[in-house]
């Protein structure tokens, strides 16, 4: 056992064609543009490498290889090349690489074997839906000739017709006791962590420390990502809640409501696209009509009563959908704001701000100014929807090619506000009282610190709610 490993750890990702080798690398590297992925066999025809890094240091090199296609034929060829003398597996593979078959009919397989001979460990990717056929066993026999640690990875385990048991039985029979279930499309961060941890147990001690570094770094980045996403959602909610659409003398209520809806839709879509980008997904990677956030709009409209119902919110029948008219002094809002401000530790500021707000409202009342703002239902919907989107993105591998699926919220029957909703709505009531937060008056934003602090507080609430209620770790 070597004390210090030679970084990076070279991992040859091998397996039959079309089992998802390229997909696996896409997911592990969070790069959905890596290589080519298609449902046809023989898609990858070269060896391509992608490196996992921790602060500038290369830790793991993943090598994507072409798939084995004719392992029965290949095994026969290797057998016939044998001159009968007792030989090591690696020598037999070396002999094959010099043969003319390695340059012609088995040129793809030759590429795989070259990588096998050079790598530190081989990931053998398995399509767990496949029956355990002879050709796969032949593949494993060929791979084991290279005398490298083999780490079987069962892909497609989230499919309902996967045969994990049969495969594990075969692997055990071949003395491969450490294997791993990992679906590159239905992504699970903790399965990924598990994968690296299992590798630690399997490899020489020299690799433990670098892999530990990778595991911790990934965990940190994952948590940072959650915070950034929560921050984005909080910003969206606060922007929406503080937004006011003035009803002027020459606009009708209906057209103002339309404008309000349009503005809010735009805010939500921008946020959805931002979330996609945060998780390193691109909306245009998949063509316009695949994502629910296509053509810059969610497929389910924010102001459609059906959408409300889908997310477990009872629709109310206001004249202007999704909007409520704020008129003059809004006592209830002011009162709640005070309480909320106190809860957030800003009692003095809250008092002061509420007083000022009352002043402004009083002036508006006297001068007959009226405005529209988003109703509570709309805010709750935005909150639940962005939660669902975040949850979906966190369980989406970068190999996924289908549109982002928003899971149906669990609480469909439950149309009441949950405590999670209430907590979030409380901070939004503060935002409601700060119309200046969503606009810039002339040159400058007013009270940016108060807004920042409110966003920060809401971010913390959102993270806590996600962890608790929505099981987003």
């Amino acid at each position, binding site marked *: 056992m070597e004390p210090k490993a030679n970084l990076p750890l070279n991992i040859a990702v091998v397996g*039959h*064609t079309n089992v998802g080798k390229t997909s696996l690398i896409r997911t592990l*590297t*969070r*790069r959905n543009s890596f290589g080519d992925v*298609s*449902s*046809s*066999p*023989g898609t990858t*025809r*070269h*060896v*391509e*490498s*992608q*490196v996992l*890094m921790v*602060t*500038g240091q290369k830790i793991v090199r993943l*090598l994507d290889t072409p798939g084995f*296609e*004719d*392992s*029965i*034929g290949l095994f*026969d060829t290797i057998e016939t090349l044998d001159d009968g003398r007792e030989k090591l597996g690696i020598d037999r593979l070396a002999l094959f690489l010099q043969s003319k078959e390695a340059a012609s009919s088995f040129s793809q397989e030759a590429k795989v074997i*070259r*990588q096998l001979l050079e790598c530190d460990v081989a990931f053998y990717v398995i399509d767990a839906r*496949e*029956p355990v*056929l*002879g*050709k796969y*066993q*032949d593949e494993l026999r060929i791979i084991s000739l290279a005398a490298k640690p083999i780490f079987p990875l069962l892909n497609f385990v989230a*499919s*309902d017709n996967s045969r994990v048991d049969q495969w594990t039985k075969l692997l055990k029979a071949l003395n491969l006791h450490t294997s791993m279930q990992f679906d590159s499309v*239905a992504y699970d961060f903790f399965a990924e962590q598990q994968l690296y941890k299992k590798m630690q147990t399997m490899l020489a001690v020299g690799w433990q420390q670098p892999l530990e570094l990778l595991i911790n770094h990934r965990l940190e*980045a994952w948590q*940072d990502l959650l*915070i*950034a*996403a929560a*921050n984005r959602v909080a910003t969206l909610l606060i922007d929406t809640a503080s937004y006011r659409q003035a009803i002027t003398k020459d606009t009708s209520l209906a057209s103002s409501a339309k404008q309000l809806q349009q503005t809010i839709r735009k805010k939500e879509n921008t946020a959805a696209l931002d979330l996609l980008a*945060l998780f390193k997904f691109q909306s245009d990677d998949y063509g316009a009509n695949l994502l629910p956030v296509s053509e810059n709009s969610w497929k389910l409209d924010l102001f459609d009563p059906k959408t409300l119902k889908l997310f477990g919110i009872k629709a109310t029948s206001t004249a202007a959908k999704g909007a409520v008219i704020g008129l003059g002094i809004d006592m209830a809002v002011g009162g709640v704001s005070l309480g909320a401000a106190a809860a957030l*530790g*800003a009692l*003095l*500021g809250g008092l*002061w*701000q509420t007083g000022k707000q009352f002043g402004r409202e009083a002036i508006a009342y006297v001068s007959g100014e009226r405005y529209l703002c988003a109703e509570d239902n709309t805010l709750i919907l935005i909150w639940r929807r962005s939660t669902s989107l975040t949850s979906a993105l966190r369980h989406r591998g970068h190999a996924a090619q289908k549109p982002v699926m928003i899971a149906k919220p669990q609480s469909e029957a439950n149309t009441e506000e949950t405590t999670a909703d209430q907590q979030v709505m409380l901070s939004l009531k503060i935002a409601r009282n700060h119309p200046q937060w969503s606009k810039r008056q002339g*040159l*400058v*934003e007013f*009270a*940016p*610190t108060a807004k*920042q*602090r409110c966003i920060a507080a809401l971010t913390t609430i959102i993270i806590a709610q996600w962890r608790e209620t929505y099981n987003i770790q």
Partner: protein
Amino acid sequence: MSINKQLMRLIQCEYLRLEEETGVIRAGSKEIERQLQQLPAEQAIVERANRLLSITEKNSLQAPSRHYRQLSIALLGFFGILGGLATVEVFSGVEQASANFFWILLALLGVNAISMFIWLLLIGWPNSADQNDSWLMSIQAWLSRKSSQDTSALRAWQQAISTTGGQQWHLSVISHGLWLAFLSGTLVMAWLLLSMRQFDFVWETTILSGDAFVSISQWLATLPSLLGIQLPTASHVMVSRVGESPQDPDELRILWSNLLLSSLAIYGLLPRAVALLFAIFARRHHWNNVLPDVSTPYYYQLKMRLSPDTVAEGIVDDDAETCHQTHNFSASNTATIAKLQQLDDVCLAGLEYDGEWPPALSAIGLDDLAPIMFSVNAIDRSSREQLLSEAGNNSIRNIVLIARFEAAPDRGIIRLIRQLNSKPATLWLLLIQHRSQQTSQQWHDWLSAATDAQLPQQQVGRLNIGIGNDGA
């Protein structure tokens, strides 16, 4: 106010953020980001802004601080004068040159003491200054309008300062500074007045006991006396009461003046100066430690770009064959199935068929077929060999090869089809589709596999006996 270096760095970052969030990406930012990959993320973010901004831009970012400094100097002067005027006002109330010492001291330091007390209260109260930054910002906005200055610079300032969380110290510096100016004015003017005019210091009371005043004055004198200043003793105080006639009024005047000036300095200026220094230190501490907030999406993404988790090394072992054949095929082959149903002497064989072998004819959708024999299901080397030898049997006229539509037709499969196709019997390939999914790509793959194996397209058929969906 001298502009804090670290804060300036944050302002530069914020300036770029505001610009980039509108979609502007500067030329050369990619290159600079690549060069900075070795640095720790926060440092790299700061350095990136430093390199991307031009000298003129950096200068214009300094402008708000210059305006701020000009305003500060003007305000300090103004408050100094105000302090002087206030002192004159206080002393002008003195009748017949006999000044009430305690009254004057209260007038000069009372409000200061109260405001100091409020400050102490507020500083212990978190976030109390948040709401007040709006007027600070308004002043800056007004200033920059006056000087028709770049608004994006001002916004960068705002954003930076609002993320630092050091506002309460910033406001403290301002208020202590102004009070200090005010008190300095007071002290100077008091000294001038006491130098140029003559006051007899007295004290008087109606309801309090005289002893109280004696002890107050002795208590006031404790600190100044440590400096060796000559101060009124208890007996001096006793004789200064209104109505008494002291023996040495000159000495008494000096002693009381000493007490007044030193009290102003020690109980007025000194605490303010200490508090000011403290606030300056606290503010500097805050601003020295400010970093871009990487929990926000923009900086998170920038951090990821600067310190990437993954890097592409590209193609290691390239494909030698440059072009791969592509074929065009018809969408489906329903005619093949009809033809299959009419065949007489058929040998059924499996190609990695997944299920019971031999299969029930209904399971493969061919109830009308009359097979003369079942060969094997080729799932490994030996069964393949067996199939090939049985297929060589001259009595067989048709071989129907049953395969899973969902399987990927790899080169091993193509080789087997080609070998079977070279036998005298006619080879048919029947693909059984279990999952009812969008499949045109797979159908295409199988047809091109057949073409590669020289099997005519008309001899390939597919049957959808779709049961359920593949959820994944």
